[in-house]
C-alpha cells in the first residue's frame, strides 16, 4: 500500500515538474498564455473531480464559483486602474456610463489586495457551503442536487447580467490593471504568469491528493458508494459533503481569479452553462475518480480544441466529435481514460505472475464500476 502511495506521489510530482518546465522550452508569449489557460481549466477539473469523483456530487454549476472568483479579481484590478480609465472620483468607467455617483458598498473592500484575494476564495466557498448545507441537510442527492447546482448558477448569472450598473452587465468588467505583488508584475503574456498558475495548480493538486487520501477522503468515497450505510455508522454525511463541496468551490474560485489575470477581463460567460458542461466533459474524459486523470483530461481536450481553433470548420466539427466521445465515455468508460489505464496496469503484472490466465482476466471485469447497482 505505501509503495502505491509513493508511486502516486512520484507520478503527480513528475507531471507537475513537467508542467513547470514548459517555459524553458517554449519562448513564445502567445503560446505561454494559451498554455496558462489550459492549466486553469486543469484546476477546474481537479475541483470537479473532488466533488463528483470522490463524493458523488455532480456539480453542473461549477462555473458559478469560478465566475465569482474571477469577478472578485476583476473588481480589485479595476479599482487599481489609472484614473484616465475610471472617470471622475476614481469610479470604474461603466459605473459612470450608468450614472452611478459613488462607489457601491460592495466594491469598497476591493481596494485592498489581501481582502480581494481572500474574497476570491472565501466568497465562492461560503456560497457553496450555504448551498451544500441547504441541499445535503435536506438529503437532496443525485439528480436533484445536480439540477439545483445548475439552477443556482443560472440565477447568479442572471443577477450579474441584470445589475449592469454594479457588474458591467453583459460586457463584464474590462480594461483592467495588471496584477502585481511584491514588485512582481504578472503580465498575461509572460512566463511569470505561467509560473504563478503552474504553482497554484501544483499546490491545488497536492492539496486535493492529501484530502482524498485522508480519513475524510475515505469517508467521502464511502458516501459516494453507499450513503445510507455511512449514515447508519453515525457519520454526519451532510457535513462531509458540504465540506468537499466548499473545498471544490474554493479551488474553482482560485482558478477564476487566475483566469481574470490571463484573460484581462471578467465576463458573465465565465458563469455560463457551456463552460460548466465543458468541465464535466473534461473530467469524464480524463477519469472522474482520478485527480490527475481529470486534470490531464482537461489539458488534453482544451489542448486539441485550441490547436483546432485556428480553423472555424475544424472547431465546429470538433464540438460534434467531443459530444460523441463524451456519450461513448459515459456509456462504456465511466472511469474515463485514467480508469482504462489503471485496468491495463492491473492486468499486466497479474498475467505475468499467474499462468492460469483465466483467473487473472476475470479479476478486472469484476471490479467494473456501476454494474453492481443497488439490487
Amino acid at each position, binding site marked *: 500500500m505505501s509503495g502505491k502511495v509513493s508511486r502516486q506521489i512520484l507520478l503527480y510530482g513528475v507531471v507537475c515538474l513537467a508542467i513547470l518546465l514548459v517555459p524553458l522550452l517554449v519562448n513564445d508569449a502567445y503560446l505561454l498564455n494559451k498554455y496558462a489557460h489550459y492549466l486553469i481549466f486543469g484546476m477546474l477539473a481537479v475541483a470537479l473531480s473532488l466533488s463528483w469523483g470522490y463524493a458523488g456530487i*455532480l456539480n453542473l454549476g461549477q462555473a458559478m464559483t469560478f465566475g465569482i472568483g474571477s469577478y472578485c479579481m476583476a473588481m480589485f484590478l479595476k479599482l487599481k486602474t489609472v484614473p484616465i480609465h475610471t472617470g471622475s472620483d476614481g469610479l470604474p468607467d461603466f459605473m459612470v456610463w450608468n450614472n452611478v455617483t459613488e462607489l457601491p458598498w460592495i466594491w469598497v473592500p476591493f481596494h485592498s489586495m489581501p481582502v480581494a484575494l481572500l474574497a476570491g476564495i472565501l466568497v465562492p466557498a461560503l456560497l457553496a457551503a450555504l448551498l451544500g448545507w441547504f441541499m445535503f441537510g435536506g438529503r437532496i442527492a443525485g439528480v436533484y442536487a445536480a439540477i439545483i447546482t445548475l439552477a443556482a448558477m443560472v440565477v447568479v448569472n442572471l443577477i450579474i447580467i441584470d445589475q449592469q450598473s454594479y457588474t458591467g452587465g453583459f460586457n463584464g468588467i474590462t480594461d483592467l490593471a495588471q496584477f502585481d505583488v511584491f514588485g512582481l508584475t504578472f503580465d498575461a503574456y509572460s512566463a511569470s504568469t505561467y509560473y504563478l498558475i503552474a504553482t497554484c495548480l501544483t499546490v491545488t493538486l497536492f492539496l486535493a491528493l492529501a484530502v482524498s487520501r485522508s480519513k475524510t477522503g475515505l469517508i467521502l468515497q464511502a458516501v459516494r458508494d453507499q450513503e445510507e450505510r455511512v449514515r447508519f455508522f453515525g457519520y454526519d454525511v451532510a457535513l462531509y459533503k458540504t465540506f468537499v463541496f466548499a473545498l471544490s468551490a474554493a479551488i474553482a474560485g482560485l482558478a477564476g481569479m487566475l483566469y481574470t489575470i490571463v484573460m484581462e477581463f471578467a465576463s458573465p460567460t465565465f458563469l455560463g452553462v457551456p463552460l460548466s458542461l465543458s468541465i464535466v466533459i473534461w473530467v469524464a474524459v480524463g477519469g472522474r475518480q482520478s485527480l490527475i486523470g481529470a486534470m490531464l483530461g482537461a489539458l488534453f481536450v482544451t489542448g486539441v480544441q485550441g490547436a483546432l481553433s485556428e480553423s472555424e470548420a475544424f472547431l465546429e466539427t470538433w464540438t*460534434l466529435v467531443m459530444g460523441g466521445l463524451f456519450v461513448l465515455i459515459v456509456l462504456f468508460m465511466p472511469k474515463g481514460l485514467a480508469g482504462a489505464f489503471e485496468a491495463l496496469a492491473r492486468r499486466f503484472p497479474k498475467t505475468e505472475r499467474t499462468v492460469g490466465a483465466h483467473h487473472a482476466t476475470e479479476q478486472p471485469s469484476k471490479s467494473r464500476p456501476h454494474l453492481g447497482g443497488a439490487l
Partner: protein
Amino acid sequence: MDFVVSQILTGLSLSSILLLVALGLAIIYGVTGVINLAHGEFVMLGAYCAWLLQTELGWSLIPSLAVVFVAIAALGWLIEVAVIRHLYDRPLDTILATWGLGVMTQQIVRLTAGGELRYVQMPPSLSGSVRILGATDSAYRLFVLGVALGLFVLTWCIYRYTSFGLKLRAITQNRAIASSFGINSARAYRLTFAYGAGIAGLAGALISPLKSVSPEMGTTYVVDAFMVVVLGGVQSLVGTLASSAVLGEASGLLAYYSNDTIAKALVLIAIVIIIRFRPQGLFALRVRA
C-alpha cells in the same frame, strides 16, 4: 375587463407552449425516470422539420405535423435503443449522456442547416384574430392551445384506459414485479421514449411560427419544461397540466409587472426551494419508490 381577459389569454398562450414542451418530458421522466436533457433538441428538431417541409416541399404547417411526429418519434426510438437503455440504473449518467446527445444534435443542425434564424409561416387559415369577451387573440395561438389540450387528453386516455397504459402504470409502480408478470418493460420504455420525443417534435413544429427557429432554441425550453415537471410532480400528468397553467400565467404577470431577467431568477429560486422541501412536486400524491 378587456385587460384582464387579454392578460389571461397571454398567460394561457404561454401555458399551452409550456404544456406542449413539458408533456413529453413528463411522460419520459414519469415512466422511465430518465431526465432527458436532449428534450429541448427534440423540440428544436421538430421546428427544423417543419421549416424544411415548408421551404423545400411547400407544405403547410398542419399536414406536416404528422410527418414531424413520426420523424422525431423514430429518432427518439433510435436514441433509446442506442444509448438510453444502457443507462436505466445510472440516473446521473443519463443526464450526462442526454446532455452530450443534445450538444451533438445542436452541432449537426448548425453544420447542416446553418446557425442563422429561420422562420416558419403560419397556416393562412389561422393567421387571423378572434374576439373573445372584448379582447382579441390570434387564432393560431388558440389553435395551439387546443392542440396542447387535445394531446394532453389523448395521453391521459392512453395512460388510463388502454391495456398499454395499464402496463405502463404497473411498470411505474414496480418494474421488477411487472416484468415477472410477463410485461415487456424494455419495449414499454422504448415506446414511451419514442412517444415523448414525438410530442416534443410536435411542440417544436407548433411553436415555430410563433418564435424564430435556431439551433439553440431548445436550451431555454428544456429548462422551462423541467421546471413544469418538477413543480407538477414526477408522476402526475394532471400535475403537469396544473403547473404549466400556473407557471404560464405567473410568467405572463411577472413579465408585465417587472423585467424578464429578475422574473426568471425569482422563478428559478422558487423551484430550487420547492425541490428542497417537496421533491415529489406540488401536485403529486404518491412518490416513486
